[in-house]
């Protein structure tokens, strides 16, 4: 096993174990995301509108939750100087990047499954077999992009004063293409306003390009970034 893979596996396993042990995702992040969805439903208070905007609301809730997850992921690293220790131990930076991104991706996938289920219940969205395949593909590709950007910018903000407020300012604008691509795919998957499922497949290209770009760029940029 290469050093990068070995480190990535150790970091991902550690991050998931920490989350499993602390239950922050299940007890705080998931209820937060569900609350965002419910509040959107209250605010719009019109079945027609909620059905139409449900795909966008799902991904907005995912983006807000991503910020919380990334903050949490790096709070664990900085609580007792572990990130500094990783850096000073010469641990393969690309391995740290991939490990943290994988752990984040697993949590995001669970979150998206719950939020999609909530959208079906709260916003009366409907989804068929082909729609489900489209949604699953979009969720997978969007997750790679979201996790890569979150890990990269989380590392950048980790050593900065006021990182909690800086992180959303850094992350959310960069993720606009993911929000657009994933929302279009989900609209097609849910068949919003008669949109065909087949209309959504081309948007997967945007999500795939974004995912590849940021996962490759992140692997190279992460070392110098956390070194500063």
């Amino acid at each position: 096993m290469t050093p990068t893979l070995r480190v990535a596996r150790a970091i991902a396993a550690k991050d998931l174990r920490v989350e499993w042990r602390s239950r922050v995702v299940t007890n705080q992040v998931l209820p937060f995301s569900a609350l965002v969805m419910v509040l959107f439903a209250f605010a719009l208070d019109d079945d027609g509108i909620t059905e139409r905007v449900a795909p966008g609301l799902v991904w907005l809730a995912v983006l807000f939750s991503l910020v919380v997850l990334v903050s949490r992921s790096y709070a664990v690293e900085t609580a007792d100087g572990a990130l500094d220790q990783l850096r000073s131990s010469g641990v393969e930076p690309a391995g740290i990047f991939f490990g943290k991104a994988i752990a984040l991706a697993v949590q995001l996938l669970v979150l998206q499954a719950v939020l999609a289920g909530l959208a079906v219940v709260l916003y009366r969205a409907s989804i068929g077999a082909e729609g489900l395949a489209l949604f699953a593909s979009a969720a997978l590709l969007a997750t790679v992009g979201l996790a890569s950007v979150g890990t990269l910018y989380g590392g950048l903000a980790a050593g900065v004063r006021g990182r909690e407020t800086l992180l959303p300012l850094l992350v959310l604008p960069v993720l606009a293409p993911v929000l657009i691509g994933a929302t279009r795919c989900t609209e097609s998957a849910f068949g919003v306003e008669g949109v065909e499922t087949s209309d959504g497949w081309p948007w997967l290209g945007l999500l795939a390009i974004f995912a590849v770009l940021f996962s490759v760029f992140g692997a190279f940029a992460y070392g110098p970034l956390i070194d500063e």
Partner: protein
Amino acid sequence: MTDVPTVRLGGDVDPGVDEVVSLRDVVVVLGAFPALAGASLSVRRGEMLLLAGPNGAGKTTLLRTCAGLTRIERGEGRVLGLDVRRDSADVRRRTGIVGHSNGLYPDLTVAENVNFWGRTVGATSDEVEAALVRMDLAGRLRDVAAGRLSAGQKRRTALAALIARRAELWLLDEPHAGLDAAGRDELDALLGAAVAAGATVIVASHELERAGRLATRRVDVVGGRVIDRADGASDGREPRS
């Protein structure tokens, strides 16, 4: 009881490299401030060196330079036979620095923390177990969450992680800070055992009497330079005021 392999404190230092640290007229600038202003230092294998000196004298920067974590502007630096400037990634991998924080994950147990740090270098389960045994953490403490440990127990866990990481040179910055009397005694015993077992250790400390009892040699760091009291100014220059 299962057998665990013996573990060499300080890793498997290349026996061909007797001079573990060799710094010559090293200048390190932090911002616009010369934190090291022509520092020279030589540390041989198996030594425990005490760095003494006032706050801001450059002790921490000297330790970080030995760990390959600072940029040397001028001078030469070799650690474990490697050029600190050119091979800083390898230097980092083979040294272990413990500062005011311990680098532990509060939600993970002692064993999980040590195991994690060992895994980053490909250590086997036996090696991790040996590190726990060596630091007397294999008993009731192994399954205790790091967040619930006392300061002394956390420091022990951090040192066990260094062993699991196979660090060949230990760099300890104020290791007694934040420990109560029992914790300090405990740490002294561990460092004494480490040196007796052949580890090379550099300690920066204000606890001169305590750390001095353990150290095989002491140098003073003053104004970014190293003064060896045993043979006068090792730099051959007077320190800056």
